[in-house]
């Protein structure tokens, strides 16, 4: 699961989270603004072949939170 998430972060934000070794936070990490967030969501939905709930999309405020949420869809 981490591999899939990391690949999406790399593709969309051009950063390598290395499984959470780097701090990544919405609205702080370069490129992770509202537009980047929706691209991240699209990438995650594609990678996990799912449709995320609106509450989950709004809750994805950090890499750790993304991992926690995507565990429900893995």
């Amino acid at each position, binding site marked *: 699961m981490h591999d899939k998430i990391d690949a999406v972060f790399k593709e969309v934000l051009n950063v390598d989270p290395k499984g959470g070794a780097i701090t990544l936070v919405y609205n702080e990490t370069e490129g992770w603004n509202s537009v980047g967030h929706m691209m991240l*969501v*699209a990438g995650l*939905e*594609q990678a996990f072949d799912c*449709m995320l*709930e*609106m509450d989950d999309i709004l809750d994805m405020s950090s890499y750790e939170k993304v991992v926690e949420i995507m565990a429900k869809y893995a």
Partner: protein
Amino acid sequence: MLDPLALSGRVAIVTGASRGIGRAIAETLAAHGATLILNGRRDGEAISRASRYISEKFNVPVSYVAGDISQAQTSANLVKDAFTRHKRLDIYVNNAGVLIDGLIGMMPEHDIDATLSINLAGVLHGVQSAARLMQRGGRGSIINMSSIIGRFGNTGQLVYSASKAGVIGATLAAAKELAPKNIRVNAIAPGFIDTDMVRQIPEAKFAERLASIGMGRIGTPQDIANTALFLASDLSSYVTGQVLGVDGGMLV
């Protein structure tokens, strides 16, 4: 030559599809080969019957999700159904609506809330849900039902007018935001259309409305469905952010 109106292989959601304009749109899209997911409010039996009828008549897959479109979960469920069954969504018709008239000072709060939540918030929920799945396919057409009353206003229709004007604003904003994703967003503004809603109008008022129509006849649900077909099809592939009046030259 390929038929530019052909919708075979495309998946369409139509809200408020049990009867009237929504039903005509659903049947017209089905007649051109679209796979359908229909929505009807609360009464699951009516939308279930409509789905069966359309599927058998036009030999296309039709499923349905019953629910109140003012609730965000209903549009989310519709799009999830499209994803689960078909993995794609090409067309989303935000048609469901209510008409509650009342003079200024005579509209109770619950009627204001109901009108805005179904006619306007329902559209906003639909656009948000639809856009997410459409962008995966790299294309899409969202069609929002406004009204001639939303463009020009009318006595006794303060709230309805505001809700339908809001639909136009939402259409223009969504068209700008979604154009780079090749998702087109347009609105239809029907005039006086022969539906259950207008059959409740007193005879004198009906005649007065009819006299205000340049073409001298009331519109039909099929007139609106034909416009929806145009906006759903490749014939309108470069059309976005538009409000198409379908009113026979009606003056309000």
